[in-house]
């Protein structure tokens, strides 16, 4: 007995002969929807990572080339904010990635964050007095901050710029509401206060695959050394 006749046999009498064809069409439609959903997952979990991988490689090369050339204009200009979307620093999280660097771009728009971790415009630049705020994807697009919850107090957060290495140490981790802008203030939690410390704040979404909360990692600057002095010892920590 063929599939078609078996299907037809189940259709009650009186139903037009088009019933099975409609059922088959519906089945094909549902299967197609299922395949579409699977493909979307493939895109989110793998495709987006490829996009960021390519961007990071390109930005890393740009950065290496830019830093090799003599600085354009007076040194004062280098201390000012980089252009939106432009790579301007490297971030190392030795506990999570060993000595692998993440290229940091200026800006936290959706487009910026597809390239890598982004620096909140207006927040302190690396080593500056105040709060250096960096945001990154927890999932998709390379997920640079995927394992941020594994950082422990005292872990190194190293930032490399054209002329310096900055070593920050993790001082705390917290989960906050998405509107907790106070963590980004120059003095976190104290609006309008004049900063006296050099701190860093990493933000990402929490829990994974959700936007319900934000995971915040805070740190304080421990030391600075010129790039001519070589890589900081903190990079050797695993």
């Amino acid at each position, binding site marked *: 007995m063929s599939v078609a006749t078996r299907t037809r046999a189940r259709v009650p009498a009186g139903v037009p002969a088009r019933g099975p064809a409609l059922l088959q069409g519906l089945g094909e439609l549902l299967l197609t929807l299922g395949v579409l959903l699977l493909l979307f997952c493939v895109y*989110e979990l793998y495709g987006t990572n490829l996009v960021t991988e390519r961007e990071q490689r390109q930005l890393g090369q740009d950065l290496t080339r830019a830093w090799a050339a003599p600085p354009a204009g007076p040194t004062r200009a280098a201390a000012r904010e980089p252009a939106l979307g432009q790579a301007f620093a490297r971030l190392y999280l030795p506990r999570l990635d060993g000595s692998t660097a993440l290229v940091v771009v200026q800006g936290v728009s*959706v487009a910026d964050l597809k390239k890598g971790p982004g620096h909140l415009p207006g927040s302190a630049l690396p080593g500056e007095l105040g709060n250096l705020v960096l945001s990154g994807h927890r999932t998709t697009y390379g997920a640079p901050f995927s394992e941020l919850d594994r950082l422990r107090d005292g872990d190194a957060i190293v930032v490399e710029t054209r002329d310096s290495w900055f070593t920050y140490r993790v001082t705390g981790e917290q989960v906050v509401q*998405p*509107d907790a802008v106070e963590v980004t203030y120059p003095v976190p939690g104290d609006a309008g206060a004049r900063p006296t410390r050099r701190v860093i704040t990493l933000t990402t*979404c929490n829990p994974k695959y959700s*936007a319900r909360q*934000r995971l915040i990692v805070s740190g304080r600057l421990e030391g600075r050394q010129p790039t001519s002095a070589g890589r900081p010892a903190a990079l050797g920590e695993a």
Partner: protein
Amino acid sequence: MYAWLWGRLPGPLPVRLLLALLALVVVLLLLFTVVFPQVEALLPFADVTVDGQG
């Protein structure tokens, strides 16, 4: 649906197979470059900053 589409394809079997493959590739390209990036914007994966818009 697919049987009907297959019936619309012209030519002998090899040509039909090639056309079907081509159509599949075009559909996949459209999905990955146009449709999925737009659907993605509706998902919360990019909400990683604290700005009150999450």
